């Protein structure tokens, strides 16, 4: 970290430096995070985009702006330790309800997960708006139907979820390894939950019909 390091300088006639500059400019100008393929479409197919990204990430690591990878897509963002300077009250994201936060966490840690499974963990039904809000925020998406009786629709998180919460991949979800080791992320046994707590069983049934007309 404290070793002297030469800045990339096109004057040094290093072809790699030109490539790095091109990738840097592309990411800087892009309206959305870009995958390696996206970048290659702009800078050219014969370019080692990954090497350029690694160089840039290293170059920016200690700067006020950093290069980050989120779900396989790259973008520049301000360094997190400078949040106190930049945090703006008016831009505060709309506060998510408690049900929304828990539902989001359950989807992220269990995905793909059906509505009935989310409800089994929370012990209450999800109101219609909760999933809508998460999908509207671009954090949650429908992820196909499960091939079990009733073919319930499942939900999963999106790349935008990873980008918003600063996660490179889902493996970076806080504490996910500990939770898995403790068996707390095992598939929810809906049948057993129904037997254990009678009222959840009634919920689960309602759920399926709910899924049908959803």
């Amino acid at each position, binding site marked *: 970290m404290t070793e002297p390091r030469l800045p990339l300088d096109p004057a040094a006639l290093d072809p790699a430096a030109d490539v790095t500059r091109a990738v840097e400019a592309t990411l800087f*100008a892009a309206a959305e995070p870009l995958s390696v393929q996206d970048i290659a479409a702009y800078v050219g197919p014969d370019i080692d985009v990954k090497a350029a990204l690694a160089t840039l990430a290293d170059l920016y690591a200690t700067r006020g702006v950093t290069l980050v990878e989120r779900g396989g897509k790259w973008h520049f963002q301000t360094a997190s330790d400078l949040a106190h300077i930049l945090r703006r009250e008016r831009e505060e994201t709309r506060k998510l309800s408690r049900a929304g936060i828990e539902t989001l966490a359950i989807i992220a840690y269990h995905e793909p997960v059906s509505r009935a499974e989310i409800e089994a963990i929370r012990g*209450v039904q999800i109101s219609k708006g909760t999933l809508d809000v998460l999908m509207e925020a671009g954090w949650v998406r429908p992820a196909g139907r499960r091939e079990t009786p009733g073919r319930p629709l499942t939900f999963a998180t999106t790349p935008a979820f990873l980008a918003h919460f*600063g996660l490179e991949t889902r493996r970076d979800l806080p*504490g996910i390894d500990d939770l898995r080791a403790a068996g707390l992320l095992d598939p929810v046994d809906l049948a057993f939950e129904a037997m*254990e707590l009678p009222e959840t069983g009634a919920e689960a049934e309602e759920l399926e019909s709910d899924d049908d007309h959803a």
Partner: protein
Amino acid sequence: MAEQLVIDAFELPKAVDEDRLTVDVGSWEGPLDLLLTLARSQKVDLREISILALVDQYLAFINDAKALKLELAADYLVMAAWLAYLKSGLLLPKDPEIEPSPEELAMRLQLRLERLNAMRDAGARLMGRDRLGRDVFARPAPEGLRVVRKSLWDANLFELIQAYGHVKVRAEPPLHIVHQRNVLTLEEAIARVSRLVGAAIEWTVIQRFLPESDDPQFRKSALASSFLATLELARQGKIALRQESAFAPLYVRAA
């Protein structure tokens, strides 16, 4: 793990002491949420909570709520009944006939509370991360990358010269060339019919006057021109024509 579980960013009802549990039931998202709040008030790792103590806390809360004439949702009462059953099961001498055993039910309940608690903590930790647009920022108004559509026009040499051929043909002044065809002209037919009829007194069918030929086109032409010839000769009063009905054989003789 135990330290992590303490994190709680939610505005949970501040109901960890029983004096303040008499707030209305709407503060909790269902009986499981209330149970978890009570379990957390034991201030130990959830894996070490006393289920019996928890059941007592829950039942006490429900009783207080009823004393205050608060509307209690049915699911809270169902849970209370189930917990009362669980409590009696745990306290009474073991009955091996009962499946699953009260101990197992208690363990399952504990697991459910742990699961919910874990997700609640996970949600809080997610919300506490450096979030894009709140703590860290992307460029608000990037220039954007542009895709420029460029047409690659396609045409080959054959199409080019074929097109020129079409233009040339279209541009030429129209010139109609009639092919030489084997026909019997009207003049020839008149001469031929008047010569042949001159000798015939009997009614003779018109086909007898036609020249012999293997060319069907010529035979048609000869019939047509010979028919016209008979009409012309009849008009001149040189011959007479007879036909029984439309399309019936046409007979000719000298007038």
